């Protein structure tokens, strides 16, 4: 068990004072090396749950453990450390830094753990080659297609050699062909490198790639 959630609730306090219950009493566990899909209708709390698993968000109540260590009461610096060392993120909207070329976008993530610039470059190039972008290293994000941008994001997610990759609708902005390319890439990382993958998705086809599904509805697991 790499990640464990116990009785998680999450409430957002909106600016207008309303309290929005995004998750209520969610318990789940994720095994090491598993490919998990989180599905459910829009607004059901999928992203909220994913951010919680990735140390971006703390629950209002309940506990989260990563390899037995508590995340729910970790401080901001501890969560940054956790993300830096263990988690890779792939988001729907590609989330690349516009003024950095593909290589530099990956290097930024590498630089958090590797200070030697030569090695940073080497690692970044290796990762981009692994996602099939050897010939686009010096392209800015706007000079890349959507599918290529998402590959750069995946290469960056691999920069810290993560044990978990969290993906929030990674194929949401892609056409079906590109989508299956990305899903295959994730599946490959899962089976060949043994990386635990948790993916939020709307699409039933995408969910087929997963070993396990968590279905959310109104903030509850069904």
């Amino acid at each position, binding site marked *: 068990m790499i990640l464990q959630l116990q009785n998680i609730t999450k409430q957002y306090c909106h600016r207008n004072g309303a309290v929005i219950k995004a998750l209520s009493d969610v318990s789940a566990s994720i095994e090491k090396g598993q490919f998990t899909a989180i599905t459910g209708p829009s607004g059901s709390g999928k*992203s909220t749950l994913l*951010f919680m698993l990735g140390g*971006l*968000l703390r629950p209002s109540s309940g506990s989260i453990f990563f390899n037995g260590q508590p995340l729910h009461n970790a401080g*901001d*610096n501890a969560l*940054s*450390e956790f*993300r*830096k*060392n263990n*988690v890779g*993120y792939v*988001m*729907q*909207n590609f*989330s*690349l*830094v*516009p*003024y*950095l070329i593909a290589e*530099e976008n990956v*290097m*930024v*993530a*590498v*630089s*958090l753990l590797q*200070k030697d*610039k030569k090695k*940073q470059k080497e690692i970044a190039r290796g990762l981009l080659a692994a996602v099939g972008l050897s010939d686009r290293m010096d392209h800015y994000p706007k000079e890349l297609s959507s599918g290529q941008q998402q590959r750069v994001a995946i290469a*960056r997610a691999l*920069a*810290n050699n993560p044990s978990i990759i969290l993906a*929030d609708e990674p194929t949401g902005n892609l056409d079906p062909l590109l989508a299956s390319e990305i899903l295959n890439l994730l599946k490959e990382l899962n089976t060949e490198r043994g990386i635990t993958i948790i993916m939020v998705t709307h699409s039933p086809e995408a969910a087929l790639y997963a070993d396990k599904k968590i279905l959310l509805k109104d903030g509850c697991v069904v």
Partner: protein
Amino acid sequence: MNLFNLVWLELLHRKARLVSGLMAIILGIAVIVGIRSVTIFSEKAVAVKLDNLGANILVLPQGASTDDYYTADIDAPTFPENYVERIVTSNLSGVDNLSPKLSRRVKIGNENFVLTGILPANEITAKPLWQTSGLMGAELKASCATATSENHPSELKDERLTRKVIDSLDALDCYVGFMAAKKLAAAEGGKINIENKEFNIVKILPETGTIDDGRIFAHLHTVQKLLGIENQISAIEIMGCCNAISEGLLSKMRNILPDTRITTIGQIVSTQLETNKMMNKISLIFLIIILLVGGISIGNYMAANVNERKREIGIYRMIGFSRSEIYSMLLLKAVILGFFGGILGCILGTLAGVILGPQLAGIAVQPIIILLPFSILSAIIISVLGSLVPAYLAAKIEPYSIMQEE
């Protein structure tokens, strides 16, 4: 890749905004540097003028008229010569070249002349020179401190005000003013008879256009004996450092010499000091305004920059940057902005001073190197102070809220 590389790449990415963000700092520093350069050179110019004059303080007996510096000592009452000793033995600083004088009208033939007894340079009592201190804000005392007997070479020589120091003078030697020599038809190497005493004419002085042209200068002690007023003098000319004067030197001297009247060469010293004071005040006011305006506008630029980069900062946080790393990233940017703003501002201000100084203030201005580190340092401080709040807000950006926005 490190924080510096990241900051640098971001700076280059948005060049147009960068320039507008830098503008306030550049202009602010330029104004300060420009004013400062002109002020420093104007202070130097004043000091040079005072140097040429040789003396700028006049000690006169009580009751002497001080309407005109050049005639104040003629026929004035007298006071003891040992007043010179009083000043020398006091703990006053900022006075030099104390030169006692005795002037009286004398008749030679049918014409009136002024006979002035002076001490040559080798008999003038000198006080030790005072210390100088340079750098920013401190006045340039150095040039005030010159006390050599040679006439001081300078482009800003005002002949009308120049009284050359006479190096040596024998008991029966005399120097004759330009007009007096004309009237007497005297020539160098000749002799004149004053009050039944033969004097050797050592030199005819060049024309100055002042009352000095009608004077005959001879040795003080000879003149005293000749006029029967021994050990008395009618004036002491003193070279005072202009800062010492502005710091109340005169009233200190009045305490030592109670029954005298002590004045400065008012129109020169005080008006120039006033101008310098005003310039210093203006540059201080500017400094404060620039601190505010520069700080606020840099802060404003940074806030806009942070707002624009919210998403990107969220990404950095997502992949594991800590809050303090985001904070450092923005402050590093502020330091870089300050550094370049300071350099460019200093160059611009110096150019303005060099070009406008001669036209507006009639003063030749040269680049002052010491202003560069000062400019860089103050620009960095302004920039960092202005960026503290935006940087703090940037560090507070939560990655999850950014990721949800689309």
